[in-house]
């Protein structure tokens, strides 16, 4: 075996040997070479020391409120559709039903308001009129709400996570 220190492409072999990443035949071949090569032995001893030193470097534990802070930030990410559609969402029931109901209601309202020849029944100021909501946006918003409910459950059911 040619000395890996003399062939740059073989250097990963040395790194892998020191990190115990080689398979059995490669490990045996490298060990056999190192037994007769003082340069490799010296290199490996030095690298072994590096690995031991790095092993000793422990990171501090993650803060116990890491998840709570993250979920609070995630909650702020929820789109304003969530706020608009919150009253349409029932507290219980399947996911598909309120989505369909909300989308249907909004589409119907849009069609009714925009139908030909339909005069305004009530004198509503322009600023108070609602645009019809596309069904995909309604569904997206309701999915957001569903996600947030799950996050809230996770946060509230995990008051003092003794992780780490």
């Amino acid at each position, binding site marked *: 075996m040619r000395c890996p220190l003399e062939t*740059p492409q073989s*250097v*990963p072999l040395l*790194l892998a040997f020191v*990190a115990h990443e080689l398979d059995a035949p490669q490990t045996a071949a490298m060990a056999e070479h190192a037994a007769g090569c003082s340069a490799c032995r010296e*290199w490996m*001893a*030095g*690298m*072994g*020391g*590096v*690995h*031991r*030193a*790095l092993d*000793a*470097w*422990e*990171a*501090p*534990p*993650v*803060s116990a409120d*890491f*998840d709570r*802070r*993250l979920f609070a*930030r*995630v909650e702020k*990410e929820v789109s304003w559709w969530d706020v608009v559609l919150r009253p349409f969402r029932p507290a219980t029931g399947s996911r598909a039903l309120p989505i369909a109901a909300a989308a249907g209601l909004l589409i119907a309202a849009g069609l009714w308001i925009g139908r030909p020849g339909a005069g305004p029944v009530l004198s509503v100021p322009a600023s108070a009129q609602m645009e019809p909501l596309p069904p995909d946006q309604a569904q*997206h918003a309701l*999915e*957001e709400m*569903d*996600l*947030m*409910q*799950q*996050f809230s459950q*996770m946060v509230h059911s995990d008051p003092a996570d003794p*992780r*780490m």
Partner: protein
Amino acid sequence: MGGAAAALDYDAELMLRVKDGDGASFGLLLEKHRTPVVHFLYRMVQNPAVAEELAQEVFLRVYRSRTTYEPTAKFTTWLFRIATHLALNALRDGKNERLQERLDDDSAEMPVRQVSDGRPSVEQRMVYQAKLDEVRRAVGALPDKQRAAVLMHKYEEMEYSQIARVLNCSESAIKSLLFRAYETLRARLAHMA
């Protein structure tokens, strides 16, 4: 990486569930990757508070990207690409400019490895802290990309190909980068062998 590869990556499956609105899957991903990401960032910037702040941003970006997520790579590759990007930016922006001061200040926050009887003497503790500071300084003195590569290789046990994808380099470039980094560490920490 195509669909077949993604099928092997359970994390990518979880992320696809998050995309479909499953918040519990996001919780699972967070539970699994929180500590590795925070620890990786801690060793990159060497400040616990900055590391957690960056880790929050990493997971927030994961959450924000859920609607457009496509499993084109291993989930951890994507995750650590975000983490590395943020860490390198933080280092570049000088968030960590007082690194050397903090290396001294943070000593009290570090976990102290227990010796066999469970109670290290004052002397043992001081020796341990001195060695630890030396390790941290040696790693902190590496060029940013070398540092990221070493941390992913050593602590996350990533393969060369994955590190290459995270750092957007060729695999051979990563091997060379890692060798140079380990050689530098060997020179600096040789007396600790």
